[in-house]
């Protein structure tokens, strides 16, 4: 009788052997890292590493496909690292490294796969082909896998350049653009499975493809993919927290904007029969902005705490800080209107779309047009 009632079972009973295997792998990996490299870490970095073990475990339990992603990315990255044999020049000699899984090769594959996924989503949407849409999902997953491998290997490569050069690859505009693509894609894939609808991929992948276009231009025109040592201001454990948290925010705001586009298209009867119901899009949009807002809040607070340590004040009204505040105020207002007034419909969808422009300006425009303390990624 209890089963028929759908009573939630206690958490630990719900976990499968694979969940436990996953957690064991995460814990062993984390603890091995700590024992092997602990002497090069400060207390905060050790803290981050130790907290990451349960955090990744629980996240894997919560979102099951992440377990597979984590293990595959880990295994292939380790294979790639083993191919280097501690020698950077192997990048241009070893077959796997040269064509597939050196950092730059993997990231270029990610770019190609995201572009293919976009085409497939559109083909599937227009031809109402479930099979094509499924292919598009698989392509997106592959792109995410290769992108993460690219970042992991890049992390290792930076240490091969010099022990003092090595750092987590979230330190310049090129690296965070890759991160942006990955986070946006992962959040989309989560909602795709949750709402059992693949049609919106066509819209969401557009913003990722735009980022891919930027990465390619940035690589070929500006050579921005070169690994640079950190400037002293960035040499801090805060970077490991502040930057990813920010990009969860940016990623989900972009995602919600594209969902807003979907909502408005459906509202005008364009693709309406192909896209999911408007209330589904609306719900996704709300959830995406909610998670984005929560992480953007955390990211901004972490940024303030870092600024207090690096620049001597938690708030300096630096253009980047100010624009982060504007983005925050924008979505705070969005959530107020939606939650308190209970407003729905095209107005909020428009607002989410416009939010993308505000976010993009905060993310890119500030670096391009305004000068300030935050000048780590210039164009």
């Amino acid at each position, binding site marked *: 009788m209890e089963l028929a009632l759908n009573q939630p079972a206690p958490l630990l009973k719900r976990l499968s052997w694979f969940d436990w295997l996953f957690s064991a792998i995460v814990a062993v990996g984390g603890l091995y890292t700590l024992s092997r490299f602990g002497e090069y870490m400060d207390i905060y970095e050790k803290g981050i590493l130790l907290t990451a073990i349960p955090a990744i475990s629980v996240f894997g339990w919560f979102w099951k496909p992440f377990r597979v992603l984590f293990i595959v990315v880990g295994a292939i990255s380790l294979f790639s690292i083993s191919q280097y044999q501690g020698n950077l020049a192997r*990048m241009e000699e070893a077959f796997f490294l040269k064509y597939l899984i050196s950092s730059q090769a993997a990231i270029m594959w990610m770019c190609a796969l995201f572009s293919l996924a976009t085409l497939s989503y559109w083909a599937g949407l227009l031809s109402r082909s479930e099979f094509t849409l499924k292919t598009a999902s698989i392509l997106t997953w592959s792109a995410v896998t290769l992108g993460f491998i690219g970042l992991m290997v890049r992390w290792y490569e930076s240490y091969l350049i010099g022990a003092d050069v090595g750092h987590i690859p979230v330190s310049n505009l090129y690296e965070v653009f890759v991160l942006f693509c990955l986070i946006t894609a992962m959040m989309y894939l989560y909602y795709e499975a949750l709402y059992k609808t693949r049609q919106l991929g066509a819209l969401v992948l557009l913003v990722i493809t735009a980022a891919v276009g930027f990465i390619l231009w940035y690589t070929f025109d500006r050579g921005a993919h*070169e690994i640079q040592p950190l400037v*002293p201001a960035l*040499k801090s454990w805060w970077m490991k927290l502040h930057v990813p948290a920010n990009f969860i925010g940016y990623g989900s705001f972009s995602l919600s904007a594209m969902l807003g586009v979907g909502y408005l298209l459906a509202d005008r009867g364009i693709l309406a029969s192909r896209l999911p119901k408007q209330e589904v899009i609306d719900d996704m949009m709300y959830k995406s902005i909610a998670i984005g807002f*929560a992480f953007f809040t955390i990211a901004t607070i972490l940024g303030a705490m870092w600024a207090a340590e690096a620049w001597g004040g938690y708030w300096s009204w630096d253009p980047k800080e100010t624009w982060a505040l504007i983005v925050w105020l924008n979505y705070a207002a969005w*959530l107020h209107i939606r939650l308190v007034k209970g407003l729905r419909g095209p107005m909020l969808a428009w607002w989410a779309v416009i939010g993308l422009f505000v976010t993009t300006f905060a993310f890119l425009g500030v670096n391009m047009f305004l000068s300030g303390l935050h000048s780590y990624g210039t164009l």
Partner: protein
Amino acid sequence: MNTPPHSFGKSVFELMSSMRFAISLLSILAIASIIGTVLKQAEPYNNYLIQLGPFWFEVYEKLGLYDVYQAAWFLLILAFLIVSVSVCITRNAPNFAREMKSFREHVTEQSLNAFKHKHEAATAHPPEALAASAQRYLEGQGYKVKNLPREGGVLLAAKAGSWNRLGYFLAHSSIVMILIGGLMDGNLIFKVQQILGYKIIETRDIPQSQVPAISRLTPSNPSFRGSVQIPEGSSADVAFLNVADGYLVQELPFTVGLKQFRIEHYTTGQPKSFESDLELFDHTGKKIREATIAVNHPLIHDGVAIYQASFADGGTRLTLRGWNLFSPSSEYFDVAGSVHQNTELTSAAGKYTIEFTDFRPFNIENMGGEVQPAGDTMSVLGGSPVSDKKHLRNVGPSFQYKLRDARGQALEFSNYMLPLELDGRWYLMSGVRGSPNDAFRYMRMPLDAGGDIDSFMRLRGVLLNAALRPEIAARFARQALPENAWNTEIEAKLKFSATQVLALFAEGGFQSLGKFIEDKVPAAEGEKAAGTYLRILELTAFEALQIANRQNGLPPPKVDDATGWLVRDTLNSMSDMFVYGAPVYLQLAQYDEVKASGLQLTRSPGKNVVYFGSLLLTLGVFFMLYVRERRVWLRIKPGHALLAMSSAKHTIDFEKEFLRHTQALDTLAK
């Protein structure tokens, strides 16, 4: 029907606590913030004056746009926001607290029937038994349940997610806390003192010790953010706060001494770390503390945080050779000076003041072209992420100075100590510019085989010496003509031409020669004449070099490529001399570096308030967004059960949950 008139106070309360008002304030705040990101803040007022012109400069100043975030109207918006949010909390908090506790047990069957989300089921179980199993079910779903006897049966009142309301309370009070913390760290106290006339901003450029008390802040000032530059081996007991178009002197509760400042570099030349070894003394001179600070690693003492903010030259002592560029001799004179100080220069060329502005021990320059990725796989991938920075090189020390003439006009110079290799040959470089917005234009002086500019200077001296011209011309003519043409008219003509070319060149370099040709030679033959003159100039210069070597007791120059280039480069360099803008070139012979560290000193009592507010904000946001408040009622009478559900937010999740509860009721009721 008359509505009772609202009192004024009540209307204000209503307005302040309305969400529309709060959202409007947020919008104004956002727009006002944008101004400060577009217009660069806290620049020297002169920059604004140049940028805006006198009229708009005045208007902008009145509006406080040069420091928007401290402007009275901006602070007023923040104050309004504090009031608005506080009023909103006081208005809603009691209600919300009641709601959190309440099970809403007074609902009637009739009102339950009016719910949009309701479900009825027939049951054979006695009401108490069904109530017990339903209560177990709801508790399993995370609800708090109250079992209430009602007429002819039972009412179950259940609620879940009450913390959502707590989230509202936390998030909104945290905003008030953060704003108050921020205002505590702002300069409100000073603003009030300024308005009342107790404090005045200092705008004069005078030594710190002469700044009067009215522009000084005592060590007890609760919050400040100032900066100070300390040379190695010195100390400071004040910091400077930049305010509007002037500054204030903040006295510190201790004295900071700088023992050493260090920069470490990566192998590629980029800076890796900036560190200062500090000593703190109390005002009796007793050492209290010793510490090393670095970027991201401040020192906190007595509530004052000391940050590594910048670095500069702290008065490096320079030993220089002064070359009088237009004197026909090759003698130099000695000059000594220190960075940030002036040296008077009285030379044949006139009276000048040298203002030494900076010294840099390293200069990392890009000395090569961009390397294109090769045409293989790597080029498809955009090339290796391992950058090829072999063309980045440290080209050694340089120093900068302004040379101000008697009329007060100044040009800025930047001279390298070591030679640079350009096109396979070595030169000493001296850059000059008229204003800080221009790029430096470089004069390059060729080195001789010994690696010095002495040969250049000697040749220059001889070429400028009018007395030597007949001899040079004679040597040149003899060299150029076959023996049978010696002592003929041709030789006389050639000598005349050579003297003329030398004289023209000594007057203004290639420009004078060019102008002469333009004026005197028909346009059709201009190019040919220029070629001839250039040839004559090079050959006479070679003869001049012979003389220069002889005068200095050196062997005659070899006839080879190196000598050829030395002569050509000397001529080019001399020609540049005429547009160099100064009659003197200062060559750096020796230096004794003194660095200075730029520290930022902050006391911010509001910091912890802001941090605590931030923590509450995070919790509040999560509660508000991720805890859903729901209520369920189950009215059970013999043979019949009525389920009703409500929530403030009717999301898809809510619909799903309602469906789950109805199915559960059907199962339990069976």
